[in-house]
């Protein structure tokens, strides 16, 4: 609306005028208030406090407000905030959301400042990809999450399995041994795989050489129906039908609680889910000594399947009145010292390959998995594919047998092609 537009422009101009950042090169003279949105549970409070103390030491007259945001409907809140006159200066964005906001002009282009961030030459490739839209950098990689298989060592031993499987065929064979050994338990799943768990389905597609979509000449074309993608999905569907009693239409939100109940031998999970499984509130601490982890095996014996690299990035709002200060804060947050803190205290995978050695014990498996990782098609329209539930819906149709794999994948591919190329 005209009135609102003018008002916002005036306000933005006014804020811009008041900005002191860039007026002086001496950090001690900088003033202003930075608003930073981090997601609930992404960084431990002690790490955030440490970062703010470091920042305060350098910029004594800048106030920093770190506001933790809740997950439910965060997209709605971000859309609205970026439409407003004073969006938060720094926002943690799920890595599959960056392209959408960058392409819409919500985020500042920081290509020229890349070198000012610690470890920017060794950032995890998939995270850097998620920040890059049309060759320009719009965010700083924050942390990553990659999946592997968490398993019950005691159940494996009881079923006579001595070592974790190293190929997909062996995964199936071991799973069937587990199913036989526990055939008296009607709730038992050797590999618990909820139907909508598409992050865990992608490794199977990628491992056989398939992909979600490919780009050529600026046009996207969905490729879940390629013969290699279908091969991967066929392998997965076979595993699910033989090894899983999870809800074929459910998602993975409850899988840790389910695992803690003791009727599951394996789940595909993030490293931090070990903590959820063994937590005293809702989990089962007694399982701590009975957990192991191994990478999702490839169909080629001895290799690992590529995994989806989840995670978050940090972006600066284009409308921010304190863009330089915002970048300075991100520099502090993602520097060598604080990234090390994120890994050792927070237990997440840091943004750089140079710190992947920090993964200890079970965590090492997940850190290693990040090295062989992939990302979703890097298109501004990708978030729309996610929000239209194309892949989860396809998986549900396949697992429940409502559609044959060729039909389900063809329908999904057509839809993905259309959405990625800007259609509905």
């Amino acid at each position, binding site marked *: *609306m005209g*009135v*609102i*537009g003018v008002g*916002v*422009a005036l306000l933005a101009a006014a804020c811009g005028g008041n900005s002191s950042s860039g007026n002086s090169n001496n950090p001690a003279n900088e003033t202003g208030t930075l608003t930073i949105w981090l997601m609930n549970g992404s960084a431990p409070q002690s790490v955030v406090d440490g970062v703010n103390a470091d920042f305060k030491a350098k910029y004594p007259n800048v106030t920093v407000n770190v506001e933790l945001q809740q997950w*439910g*409907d965060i*997209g*709605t809140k971000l*859309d609205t905030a*970026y*439409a407003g006159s004073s969006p938060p200066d720094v926002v943690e964005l799920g890595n599959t959301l960056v392209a*959408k*906001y960058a*392409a*819409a*002009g*919500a985020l500042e282009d920081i290509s020229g400042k890349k070198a000012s961030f610690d470890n920017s030459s060794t950032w995890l490739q998939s995270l850097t990809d998620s920040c890059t839209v049309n060759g320009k950098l719009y965010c700083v990689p924050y942390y990553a999450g990659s999946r592997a298989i968490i398993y019950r060592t005691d159940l494996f031993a009881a079923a006579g399995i001595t070592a974790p499987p190293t190929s997909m065929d062996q995964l199936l064979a071991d799973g069937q041994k587990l199913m036989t050994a526990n055939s008296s338990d*009607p*709730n038992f799943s050797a590999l618990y795989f909820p139907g*909508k768990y598409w992050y865990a389905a992608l490794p199977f597609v990628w491992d056989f050489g398939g992909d979600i979509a490919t780009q050529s000449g600026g046009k996207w074309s969905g490729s879940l129906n390629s013969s290699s993608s279908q091969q991967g999905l066929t392998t997965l569907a076979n595993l699910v039908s033989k090894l899983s*009693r*999870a*809800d*074929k*239409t*459910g*998602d993975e*939100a*409850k899988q840790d*609680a*389910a695992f803690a109940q003791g009727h599951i031998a394996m789940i595909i999970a993030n490293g931090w889910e070990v903590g959820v499984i063994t937590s005293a509130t809702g989990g089962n601490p007694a399982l701590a000594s009975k957990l192991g982890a191994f990478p999702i095996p490839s169909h080629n014996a001895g290799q690992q399947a590529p995994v989806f690299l989840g995670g978050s990035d940090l972006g600066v709002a284009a*409308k921010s009145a304190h863009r330089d200060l915002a970048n300075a804060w991100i520099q502090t947050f993602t520097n060598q010292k604080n990234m090390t803190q994120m890994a050792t205290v927070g237990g997440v995978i840091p943004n750089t390959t140079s710190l992947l050695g920090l993964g200890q014990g079970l965590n090492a498996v997940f850190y290693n998995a990040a090295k062989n990782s992939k990302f979703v098609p890097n298109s501004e329209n990708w*978030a*729309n594919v996610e*929000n*239209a*539930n194309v892949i*989860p*819906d396809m998986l*549900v149709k396949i697992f*429940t047998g409502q559609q044959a794999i060729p039909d389900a994948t063809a329908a999904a591919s057509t839809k993905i092609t259309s*959405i990625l190329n800007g259609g*509905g």
Partner: protein
Amino acid sequence: MATAIATPELEPASTRIHQRSRLLPYALIAPGIAVIGGILAVPLGWLVWISFQHYGLKELINHQGEWVGLNNYRTILADPLFHQVLVRSLLFTFACVALTVALSTLIAMLLQRVRRLVRVTLMSALVFVWATPVIVSVDIWQWMFDYEFGVINYVLTQLHLGNFIHHNWFDNPLQGWAVVTVIVVWGAIPFVTITLFAGLLQVPADIVDAAHVDGAGPWQRFWHVTAPMLKPLFLIVICLSTIWDFGVFNQPYVLLNERPSADYFTIAIYSYRESFGVTQYGLGAAIAVLMVLILIVVTLFYVRETVRVAEIA
């Protein structure tokens, strides 16, 4: 018109009061209109304005859309999904309103017939249900209908009503919508029941007794004596329930993990999805406008009757 007794013309007062009275009603309603208008007029105008534009995230951030005339409306009206969602929403609304009003009437009549202790217990139960935030109660229901940990599957299996172990209530949309209906009706019963019960207390006992003596059965007493007296109340309750149930959002949205498939769209979810899911705010706004228009048509009869009854009062 009965309202005439309240109009200034008939009042035996001086010209001074007469003059003042003519302006008084406007003075009285002015603050209300100012508040509602002041807060909602611009947003409502924006909604209608946007519905004629191509308005994506980029346009939203820059506050600059592209005028496309009736294109958004054409797109939606030509979308088979919209027709599906509309028919489903209408059927769902009808089922919910009918069930809510019927059950609430029965419970309200029961409240009249039980002894005091039971009445207080039942009323308190209704109050508890009413006071629980929807975002919490839907979570509880989702959990109760859960595939693995759901107490409903467990109880139904224990009662030997079939094997409900690992039964998925949302596999079959018809069953899923039955669950949604149960939850919506459960949440709607307290308001309607308590309102109707209050109304029942107002029906003078001597009239009902007279009908009893005249030999009318309980059904006839209700139909010919009680119901007509409660008509204004029924109108309000049906009208409000229709508005609320047609706009249902949270129940299917949360039950299906905030990512309902198209089978579980209500019009409100469809509009929200077009806006925030695929950032087509123009389309989302057009759906919301259509939703209000359809609601006006659906409730036209009730609104007219309600206003007519109000005019007489």
